[in-house]
């Protein structure tokens, strides 16, 4: 089930990553975002890091730190919510 926050985050992600050609309904928020899932790559990973800093004030120093968070869209959204509490 998608909360408003997760839905909102998904929209923001689609904007940032230039994946507007994919119908939001087709984006599985539990699918692995790299590789076969959503097919994002290393530049997208960096872009998400910038987005988290810019929009949510969450800082990662490098992609390795973010690995355990960047597993699925739901996971990232949940992480943001917990950081903001």
């Amino acid at each position, binding site marked *: 089930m998608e909360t408003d926050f997760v839905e909102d985050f998904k929209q923001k992600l689609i904007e940032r990553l230039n994946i507007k050609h994919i119908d939001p309904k087709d984006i599985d928020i539990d699918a692995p975002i790299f590789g076969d899932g959503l097919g994002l790559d290393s*530049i997208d990973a960096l872009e998400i890091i*910038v987005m988290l800093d810019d929009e949510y004030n969450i800082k990662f120093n490098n*992609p390795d730190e973010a690995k355990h968070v960047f597993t699925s869209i739901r996971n990232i959204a949940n992480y943001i919510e917990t950081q903001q509490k």
Partner: protein
Amino acid sequence: MEGVFCHRGSIINGFADGLQHHWQNCLEGKSMLSPVVSPGEENGYTHSLTEGKWNSLREKYGPAYTKCALLCLEALLDTGFKADEHPPSLIIIASTKGDIDLLSVENAQSREAPFLLSNIGKQLRTYFQRQLDIITLSNACISGNQAILLGADYIKTGRYKHVYAVGVDLMSDFTFYGFKSFKAISSTPCKPFDIQRTGISLGEGAACLRLGSEPQPFEGLQSIAFTTGAVTNDANHISGPSRDGEGLVRAIIKCLELADYTPEAISLHGTGTIFNDEMESIAMSRTGLDKVPAFGLKGIYGHTLGAAGILETNLSLMAMCADAIPGTVGYETSGTSIPLNLSGEKFDIHYNTLMKTTSGFGGGNCVLFFKKIG
């Protein structure tokens, strides 16, 4: 086909003038990187010109010239360039971003704007009050090497007797923060091939290599010929090298076939990123060159982007003249899956041939081979 020989070289940056002085620096293994001063935290290390140095260039050439033009003028003249050479020489300018710090919303539309890469050549013509034959190329970090390769080809085919390959790039917020967004900037001075490497250190400056069809000792020291070179593409990813170094391997193999010798020393690209240095080590292994004495020069002046291929070739040619393998500044312990024959300290061996490698964003690779003559 004509022979191609290396005549003169120059490096213009925040350090002393004269290639001999830069070489002395290299021999002593000194790093010219200093901390980026920015509000808040230390952000990395770079090599830049001081305001004093910029002012002295402006005094020498005139206040109207952009930073890139000033650097190119000094680099050209330091290799003995004369605008009234007969027959005319060719200048090949290599730069990734030129005077990008002059870009603004207001001037972005103008076809004569000062930030345009073509404006560098235009200013050279203004200064020398002459038409001048100029080519401007922009192919990321392989630009410098590629300018040398094209220059050599122009001489080989008898189109020009002399070519000046001049590479230039600036330390700009544009470039620094761009690489920072890639998490590619090392917070310490870069450590090429080292196990603790975390990224690049940027540097600015210009370098010029004068090539000619007549054999002539490089910087009056030793005759060195350009043998061959190759440009390839990884065709894999626009900002990361192929894990298996395929593009670089292909470029090296092309050169090995054309040159008919195996280089006895290698001047590597060695940016200090995890990916580049790992890729280069794999490429050396795949081509059987991992035991060849090698060195990386970016620990001294940082990664000078469009100038890098020429700046580092110039120092490598000096190394050939001195029969020295420079220490790789910043390197202590091997951090690549194939260890290369590098050292933090310089060592002396007699060698006649050298390979210079470069790789860059956009998947390009450019490899050059040089050989002592006589």
